């Protein structure tokens, strides 16, 4: 088979470059065969033996479509250029090849699973890409910035090197902020036996602390019995899941669930983040053999849906003007929350303009799957390859794009910036705070 023609601007990523210089072919061969033999089974074998090389999956992928149908971005090509070669050569490949594998798997695929939905056989390319990432991670071939977040997880059990005292300080500060709106609002720490444990991702206390204030107000108005942990285990994000370091992924997920168990809560409600939900609901529990989370996990979209449907939160005045929303793959296509998102958007916005395609067919923002966490070296190609979604946003004519996912939030901000869309990017909770009714007895 002729090699794929790959034209890319050169990218300097110190971790990949140094790893390439260091790796030996014996190490590579050993790791590839170990992963294929011990960690994969019927799925990979059947997918490889069933794929009829028809190329139908390419229509699904925003990388392919945004780059003028450059075949090197087509889903099936990504497998051809990685696993086909590894399997054919029984693991005998060189370090430059593994570096290219990491580039493909970590920086040019979001594991958004759209292509799985477009292959007539339902071949799950994203799963195979994760196998490639696994091999790369075992060989330390992981982009620098992504690996840094994994180190942070390993050392601090959160993604952003947040120290224990910073965490508690931030929560107390945000409790005070919230009390500016609703004086009786509380952010209860370590309340054993509460109904809900609320967990967030590392970047919230680090850069987006006001979201913690918002949820404190929302919880008070809705009258929820909730708590947050004062210990590690508060961070539900998981970049190790995306680098391929599943041992650390499992440690993170285990601590998150065990913290909820320690607090004896009935459910975990998580902030607006797609991949965190995926890790806590699916990848973590299946890797550890639990299959299902021990305590149910509720994503923010479903939580707000419940609050609005049950009337625990009432809308005082809908937000004006055309507003659209990104559909985060990990909670829509891969968790079925599409119609709930549409419901809450319509409840809170006067004029919700839907994307086309929408719901589970919507395109990824191109930040997900760890690609945005690969950092500045890879930003140019990532944003360039989100062109298609930028056009979809533009067509809505909205003044604001809602992103109920942290990765999407940053990714969509990059899109708005690069394609000069002039739109605001907001979390759903920011709209909710604007629109909801604060009962008189709670007002200052």
């Amino acid at each position, binding site marked *: 088979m002729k090699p794929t023609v790959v034209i890319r601007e050169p990218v300097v990523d110190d971790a990949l470059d140094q790893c390439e210089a260091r790796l030996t072919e014996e190490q590579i061969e050993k790791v590839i065969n170990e992963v294929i033999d011990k960690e994969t089974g019927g*799925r990979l074998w059947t997918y490889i033996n069933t794929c009829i090389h028809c190329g*139908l999956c390419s229509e699904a992928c925003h990388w392919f479509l945004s780059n003028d149908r450059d075949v090197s971005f087509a889903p099936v090509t990504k497998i051809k250029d990685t696993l086909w070669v590894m399997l054919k050569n029984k693991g005998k490949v060189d370090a430059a090849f593994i570096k290219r594998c990491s580039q493909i798997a970590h920086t040019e695929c979001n594991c958004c699973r759209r292509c799985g*939905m477009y292959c007539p056989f339902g071949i799950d390319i994203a799963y195979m890409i994760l196998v490639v990432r696994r091999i790369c991670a075992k060989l330390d071939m992981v982009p620098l910035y992504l690996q840094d977040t994994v180190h942070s997880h390993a050392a601090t059990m959160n993604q952003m090197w947040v120290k224990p005292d910073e965490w508690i300080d931030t929560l107390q500060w945000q409790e005070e902020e919230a009390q500016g709106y609703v004086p009786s609002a509380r952010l209860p720490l370590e309340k054993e036996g509460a109904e809900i444990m609320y967990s967030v991702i590392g970047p919230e206390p680090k850069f987006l602390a006001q979201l913690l204030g918002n949820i404190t107000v929302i919880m008070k108005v809705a009258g929820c019995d909730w708590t947050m942990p004062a210990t590690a285990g508060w961070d539900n994000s998981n970049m190790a899941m995306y680098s391929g370091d599943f041992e650390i992924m499992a440690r993170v997920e285990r601590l998150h669930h065990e913290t909820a168990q320690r607090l004896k809560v009935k459910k975990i409600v998580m902030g607006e983040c797609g991949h965190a939900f995926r890790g806590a609901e699916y990848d973590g529990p299946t890797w550890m053999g639990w299959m299902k989370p021990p305590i149910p996990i509720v994503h923010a979209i479903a939580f707000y849906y419940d609050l609005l449907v049950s009337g625990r939160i009432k809308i005082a005045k809908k937000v004006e003007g055309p507003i659209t929303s990104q559909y985060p793959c990990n909670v829509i296509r891969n968790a079925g929350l599409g119609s709930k998102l549409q419901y809450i958007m319509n409840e809170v916005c006067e004029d919700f303009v839907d994307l086309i395609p929408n719901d589970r067919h919507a395109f990824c923002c191109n930040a997900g799957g760890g690609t945005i966490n690969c950092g500045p070296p890879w930003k140019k190609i990532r944003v360039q390859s989100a062109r298609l979604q930028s056009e979809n946003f533009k067509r809505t004519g909205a003044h604001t794009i809602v992103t109920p996912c942290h990765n999407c939030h940053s990714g969509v901000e990059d899109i708005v910036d690069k394609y000069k869309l002039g739109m605001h990017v907001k979390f759903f909770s920011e709209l909710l705070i604007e629109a909801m009714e604060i009962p008189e007895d709670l007002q200052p």
Partner: protein
Amino acid sequence: MYEFVSGPLVWIAFIIFIGGSLYRIFYMLQSSKKEKVVFPHMSLEHSVASLIHWLIPFNNQYMRQRPVFTIVSFAFHICLVFTPIFLLAHVILIDESWNISWWTLSESVTDWMTIIVIAGAVFYLVRRLTDPVVKNVTDTSDFVLLAITVLPFITGFLAYHQWFGTNTMLILHILAGELMLIAIPFTRLSHMLFFVFTRTYFGSEQGHVKNSKDW
């Protein structure tokens, strides 16, 4: 020659086809047991839903997005599978040997179905040579598989119309048919065996585990 090709070799071909298929399916199930997720994720309801959406033409979003391909793909596969089974000549042969027979299609219908298969193969060939994505993932084996698929139809057609020495053509036809049967379990033509499994697994994972849909 004809006796051998249409006697023992047919037996051998069918034994390899059926035995090989069973073996490959058994191997697939066995190695899927090694994985934690496969069997616990399966769900009958979502498997059926997935099959309904992917085995009925235009019953999912993507098939509607590419109508020409969908029509060709279904016409090709339906004719490919049903022509040999309901072909008068085949049923007569089986009747003569074992005294069992079943309903058959008229010869002019099967003749047209044969043409559809050949035309479908030409479509796939052209796609393979021109579509950049498909071209990029094509090697000799893809052409060989296409040839193995279409040869029984070309030779059967020629034999039926008695265009080149009927006897030679018949022998070639039977050889081609046998080759195809033998190739199914051991090449990517095994997609015929695995389709149901890959489809129902993905449907189950999407529906049962992820509360979503796969169409």
